[in-house]
């Protein structure tokens, strides 16, 4: 029996785990965006604070994912075994690329254009929404793209703390020393990452060519 036959035979569970996987990634990305975009915007004009926050986000990024999942389990409110802990850890990983690209994207907007916008009587809010964010959009989206692809990969490890997702097959396969089972988790996860990268890449190119 090839890995493909295994996949077909267990398609119901593969599908369910894939949906679970997408759900974890989507929840984590929603949190990371809800925090990262406003925080990034707020940090643009606070250079010193920006260095600190990006530094901390950078350190978080260097914590091995399995360790981060483990660290979060005993934390009250968000901790425990299961999906919510995993989502918090995934959001922390996704935060850095979103934060960094929001800052660099907005700082990269042509200063002459922003000066014109202010000098013509746009309010700070109008400058942000009508000038800075649209012009920074391709860079912002590049950050979201990286964060999404990272999340899809790291989510496979979330199975270790009982969060479900395609990682369930991988851990089961490792325990059973059975490559077919590992691949039933690894291949859909890889396809998911490739697809997300491609789709967001398309959006990014469309924004950049405007």
């Amino acid at each position, binding site marked *: 029996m090839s890995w493909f036959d295994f996949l077909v035979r267990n398609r119901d569970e593969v599908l369910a785990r894939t949906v679970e996987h997408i759900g974890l990634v989507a929840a984590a990305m929603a949190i990371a965006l809800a925090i990262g975009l406003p925080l990034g915007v707020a940090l643009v004009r606070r250079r010193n604070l920006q260095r600190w926050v990006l530094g901390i986000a950078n350190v978080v990024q260097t914590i091995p994912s399995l360790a981060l999942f483990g660290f979060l389990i005993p934390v009250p409110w968000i901790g425990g075994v299961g999906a919510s802990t995993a989502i918090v850890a995934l959001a922390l990983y996704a935060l850095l690329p979103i934060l960094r690209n929001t800052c660099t994207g907005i700082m990269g907007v*042509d200063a*002459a*254009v922003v*000066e*014109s*916008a*202010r*000098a*013509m*009587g*746009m*309010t700070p809010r*109008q400058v942000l929404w009508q*000038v800075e964010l*649209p*012009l920074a959009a391709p860079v912002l989206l590049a950050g979201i793209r990286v964060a999404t692809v990272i999340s899809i990969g790291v989510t496979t490890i979330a199975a270790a703390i009982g969060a479900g997702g395609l990682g369930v097959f991988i851990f089961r396969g490792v325990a059973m020393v059975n490559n077919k089972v590992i691949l039933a988790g690894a291949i859909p996860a890889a396809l998911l990452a490739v697809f997300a990268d491609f789709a967001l890449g398309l959006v990014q190119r469309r924004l950049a060519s*405007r």
Partner: protein
Amino acid sequence: MNPVSDAGEALEFSNVTFRLPSAVALLSNLNLAVARGETLILLGRSGSGKTTTLRLINRLLEPSEGEIFIAGRAARDWNPIQLRRGIGYVIQDAGLFPHWSVERNVALVPHLENWEPERIRARVKEMLDLVGLPPADFALRKPSELSGGQRQRVGVARALAADPPILLMDEPFGALDPVTRAELQREFRSLAARLKKTIVFVTHDVREALFLGTKIALLSQGRLVNIYSPEEFLRAAEPEARAFAASLQMANGEEAR
């Protein structure tokens, strides 16, 4: 809330000093008045405080000391947003919004002021015609589809769209090739004469200053050297003015050869 009023000068600087947070003064004790309908040139070398002076008028910068009056009223009493919508602004690279069409760029201030769409459309057409860009050809283009001279024309159209009584220009023709520059200077001079705006125009090009200005304010190291009419400028005794006049003669001498 329109910066036009019947009283006083269009613009006045009273003992204005601007310092950086590091206490370095970019502008010291500036006293200057601009009458309505006048084109005042701020002439000076790089770092003389020309652009600083300009940016103090529309409150992109705030004076450290002294007071600026616009239409007889202290600038600090104006709401900065309202003030800026009543003052046109054109800079060297035009500063057009690259993600917007020419039409949308020109419509900026009318749009911010919530004009009726019909009125905005008519005004944009009028402005593009005024600066010599047929709307049928240019309205829907992006700034990236324009030449440098055309971009600058759009910049002027955008600045004039809401019919502001005051126009600030920071080396608007500085980055253009000499032929295009001369063409825009000629057109701008007749435009300025027709529109009767109060214009403050920054340049380091003495020819441009003499050609466009009704008055020339010479700045050096953050201080006002003097204010001249174009005729007076060439006969001025101050060494800073003579240095500029000499640069002009040198250029003329080379042409004669």
